[in-house]
């Protein structure tokens, strides 16, 4: 360059002359359109991302965003139309495959296009509130491809068909199914639901309805439940593999409804295989399955529980009213315990220890056990048997187990005070005859009763134990003092019983033989010498004696007899034959007791140390008794006394009942007075309710009895009726 006129060197702003070329937009668009075509035709590799991005950027910058956008829509739509057709053209099984492939491609294309048009996506679109590119792509796919009538119906049909095939055991392409359902989900939740899920659920319901109908006609309960469980698991698995997780609860509801809920009653009541049979046959697995399945449906467990409860109540009721069963109380109670064990096992192993079932069981037992008014007596007899011999040689833990189980039954009793009465009687016999297997076991049971019912219940029982202990000490003192002079007399062992603690016995007459009397007097003097202000009376109906007897051929035996029997036998030391009267007079034993005593001495095989003339079974006033010198027994020690506790006869039972009723009266009155003292004024119904509540741990008071007691208290001026309201009572201080 030569020297020319020097110009001032100016720096000017860069003026890029925007050429408002009307054809500019069109030209740019064409470039982009072409690119889209290429992308859809899988020729994207030849494109320059940078150039395309710049073109799109420019279009938007120069305010041609609208053209760009609408162009995009048009182009994409036309491509999708073509794709849709090709999918439609696919045959049979390839339909899904084709759809899936094209979807994948579309997604890839979408991504590229979105990248190219990113500037528009970020500026133009938000400003104009248009649908962003990605979403646009999905919507167009949805509208043009999926919702094209041909594709839509066919897609739905094929998907459902696949499910059906899989349900009948065929193997299908799960991966493909997963992709398709993912596609539907991506297109929007309503697409998945409307296009697929809704119909899926409907069809499934129909399917299972039919299947369950079929099964229920052909299977027994256990098999049916197995099948139902299998189907349920299948569906859960299906969902996890290729459906939306949210579908799980929906499809399981369908299965539960169709297969279980609709047939609930029929299954439970099914003859020979229903709930009751399962219980009877101890089919734990089936029961567990039933529990799990029925838990899923509303009122399923309620039904199971109700059927179980009424079964237990019915069988229980039968048991307690069956006269055969009631003949042997110990066996009866053992049966109850076994029954309880059985149901407990069912509840723990099959019903996952469900509290409501446990409660239902408890209330059922409570119901039927109290139907038989002799339950308290029988339970006491059972305990008596166990403590006498049943628990011999049993480990301490096992003893505890047995006693705990007995306590469970005890808790069900409504009339605990009746039990107390019998228990006291039986305990007294055990203690006095020294026939208890383990004192620890006895004490353990007392402790349990105390925990359950409070100190009052057991204080007298404990008193009995104390008396036994004290008596031992007394005897030691006695033999220490009189050791020398009693050495060659009969050996005396005395238990001194405190009157209040032991069951009341009527005083009976009995003349002790001379040989014994001296010894008894010595003891009496000794005792009264050390304890002033007390009175002793010999309880001749509760004692025992061991006699050494020599029979005709010199055979010696030791006879263990009751005190009465001893008195009778001692008479035969001075005579070989005695009439009934000759026995009655000197001994002065009351007639009924004497007859019973003679019966066990003369009429029982193997124990007949006396012979009776005539040889009839019953004792008559005119009978004569002879010493049976021909008596033999293979045992040296022969036990003749009837000391063991036995089930009461009917009249005895009545008597005990009466005494219990009498005992209850003061308890009810005490409760009424307690309540009225606190409340001052209370109406009749509330008094009855409160009294019942207060006494329920001992017995269930009869409202009529409560009313009578109230009247008695009115009579004795503890209470009065309110002048205004005759249903109200007032406490009179």
């Amino acid at each position, binding site marked *: 360059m030569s020297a020319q006129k020097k110009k001032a060197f100016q720096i000017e702003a860069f003026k890029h002359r925007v050429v408002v070329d009307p054809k500019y937009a069109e030209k740019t668009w064409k470039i982009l359109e072409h690119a889209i075509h290429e992308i859809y035709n899988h020729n994207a590799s030849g494109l320059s991302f940078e150039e395309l991005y710049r073109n799109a950027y420019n279009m938007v910058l120069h305010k041609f965003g609208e053209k760009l956008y609408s162009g995009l829509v048009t182009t994409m739509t036309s491509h999708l139309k073509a794709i849709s057709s090709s999918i439609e053209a696919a045959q049979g099984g390839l339909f899904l495959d084709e759809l899936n492939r094209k979807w994948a491609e579309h997604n890839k294309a979408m991504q590229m296009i979105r990248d190219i048009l990113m500037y528009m996506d970020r500026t133009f679109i938000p400003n104009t509130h248009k649908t962003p590119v990605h979403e646009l792509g999905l919507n167009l796919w949805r509208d043009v491809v999926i919702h094209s009538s041909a594709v839509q119906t066919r897609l739905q049909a094929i998907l459902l068909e696949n499910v059906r095939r899989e349900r009948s055991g065929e193997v299908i392409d799960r991966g493909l199914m997963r992709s398709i359902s993912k596609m539907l989900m991506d297109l929007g939740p309503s697409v998945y639901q409307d296009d697929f899920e809704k119909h899926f659920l409907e069809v499934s319901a129909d399917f299972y309805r039919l299947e369950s109908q079929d099964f229920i006609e052909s299977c027994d309960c256990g098999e049916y439940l197995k099948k139902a469980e299998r189907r349920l698991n299948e569906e859960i698995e299906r969902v996890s593999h290729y459906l939306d997780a949210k579908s799980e609860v929906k499809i399981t509801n369908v299965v539960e409804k169709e297969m279980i809920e609709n047939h609930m009653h029929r299954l439970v009541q099914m003859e020979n295989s229903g709930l009751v049979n399962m219980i009877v046959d101890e089919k734990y697995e089936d029961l567990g399955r039933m529990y799990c399945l029925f838990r899923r449906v509303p009122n399923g467990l309620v039904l199971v529980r109700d059927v179980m409860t009424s079964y237990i109540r019915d069988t229980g009721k039968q048991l307690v009213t069956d006269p055969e069963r009631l003949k042997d109380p110990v066996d009866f109670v053992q049966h109850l315990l076994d029954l309880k064990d059985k149901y407990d096992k069912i509840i723990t192993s099959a019903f996952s220890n469900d509290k409501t079932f446990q409660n239902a069981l408890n209330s059922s037992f409570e119901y039927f056990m109290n139907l038989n008014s002799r339950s308290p007596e029988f339970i006491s007899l059972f305990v008596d048997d166990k403590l006498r011999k049943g628990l011999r040689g049993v480990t301490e833990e096992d003893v505890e187990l047995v006693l705990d189980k007995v306590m469970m039954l005890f808790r069900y009793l409504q009339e605990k005070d009746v039990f107390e009465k019998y228990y006291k009687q039986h305990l007294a016999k055990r203690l006095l005859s020294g026939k208890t297997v383990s004192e620890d076991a006895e004490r353990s049971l007392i402790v349990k009763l105390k925990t359950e019912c409070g100190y009052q219940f057991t204080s007298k029982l404990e008193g009995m134990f104390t008396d036994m202990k004290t008596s031992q000490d007394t005897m030691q003192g006695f033999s220490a003092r009189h050791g020398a002079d009693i050495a060659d007399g009969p050996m005396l062992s005395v238990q001194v019983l405190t009157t209040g603690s032991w069951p009341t016995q009527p005083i009976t007459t009995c003349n002790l033989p001379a040989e014994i009397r001296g010894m008894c007097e010595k003891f009496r003097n000794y005792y009264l010498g050390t304890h002033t202000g007390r009175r002793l009376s010999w309880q001749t109906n509760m004692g025992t004696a061991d006699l050494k007897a020599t029979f005709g051929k010199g055979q010696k035996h030791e006879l263990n007899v009751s005190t009465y029997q001893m008195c009778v036998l001692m008479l035969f030391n001075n005579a070989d034959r005695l009439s009934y009267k000759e026995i009655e007079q000197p001994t002065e034993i009351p007639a009924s007791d004497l007859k019973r005593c003679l019966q066990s001495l003369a009429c029982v095989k193997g124990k007949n140390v006396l012979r009776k003339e005539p040889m009839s079974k019953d004792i008559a006033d005119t009978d004569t008794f002879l010493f049976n010198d021909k008596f033999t027994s293979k045992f040296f020690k022969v036990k003749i006394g009837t000391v063991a506790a036995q089930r009461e006869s009917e009249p005895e039972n009545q008597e005990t009942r009466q005494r219990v009723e009498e005992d209850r009266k003061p308890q009810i009155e005490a409760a009424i007075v307690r309540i009225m003292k606190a409340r001052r004024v209370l*109406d*009749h*119904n509330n008094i009855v309710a409160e009294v019942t509540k207060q006494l329920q741990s001992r017995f269930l008071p009869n409202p009529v009895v409560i*009313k009578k007691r109230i009247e008695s208290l*009115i*009579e004795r001026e503890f209470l009065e*009726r309110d002048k205004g309201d005759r*249903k109200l009572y007032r406490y009179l201080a």
Partner: protein
Amino acid sequence: MHKLGRGHRDKVQQFMTITGASEKIALQALKASDWHLEGAFDFFYSQPHIKSYTDTTRLEELYNRYKDPYTDMILVDGITLLCNDLQVDPQDIVMLVVSWHMKASTMCEYSKEEFFIGLQALGIDSLEKFGERIPFMRSELKDEQKFHEIYNFAFGWAKEKGQKSLALDTAIGMWQLLFAEKQWPLVDHWCQFLQARHNKAISRDTWSQLLEFARTIDPALSNYDAEGAWPYLIDEFVEYLNENGIIQNGQFGDRSQK
């Protein structure tokens, strides 16, 4: 009376018949209520007994007529004489009302004090006055409140001294008497029931509650409430009625003639 108009005269007559009051009192009451009979009755019954003056000496005389020669009390013979003088049956219920006024403690005897208290309250110091008061006393039984008091009084009066309860026979007798006045349809069944099933003395509570029962529960037992805190004897009575078909389907079929 001749000064009164016909209508008024009738009213006075009516008043006297119904209440057994004297003419003077009838006039008083009717005047006070402006000659309305209803109002006059209210007036009359709400007044304390118009104590006309009683002469103590004359009372003394009367007392001495009837008192027992050996004790200072009127005993059975004296009472019989009194009844004869009044031309009233000793079993007549009006004698119960008399005893009530006297606040007598036991039947078949009146102490001097009781005699005086009773007669003074009634404004009696002569046999004529006594006789005049009889209709009045009968009318008192018609008054609900007074009947209630008399009924409850009867329990204490009829029972043995020192006993808490009333012997069954005496109770039945009293009930027959009292409910003949009151007209309770079930009284015979009640007495039969007691003799058949109960056979023991009657407590005060049962006695007083029976009146409530007769008053409030209709003979068909339609409004009987088993939870109504009635004494158990009454509950048993209801059972008895149902068992023996006397009450069937809430209908009272009266087998006995009354």
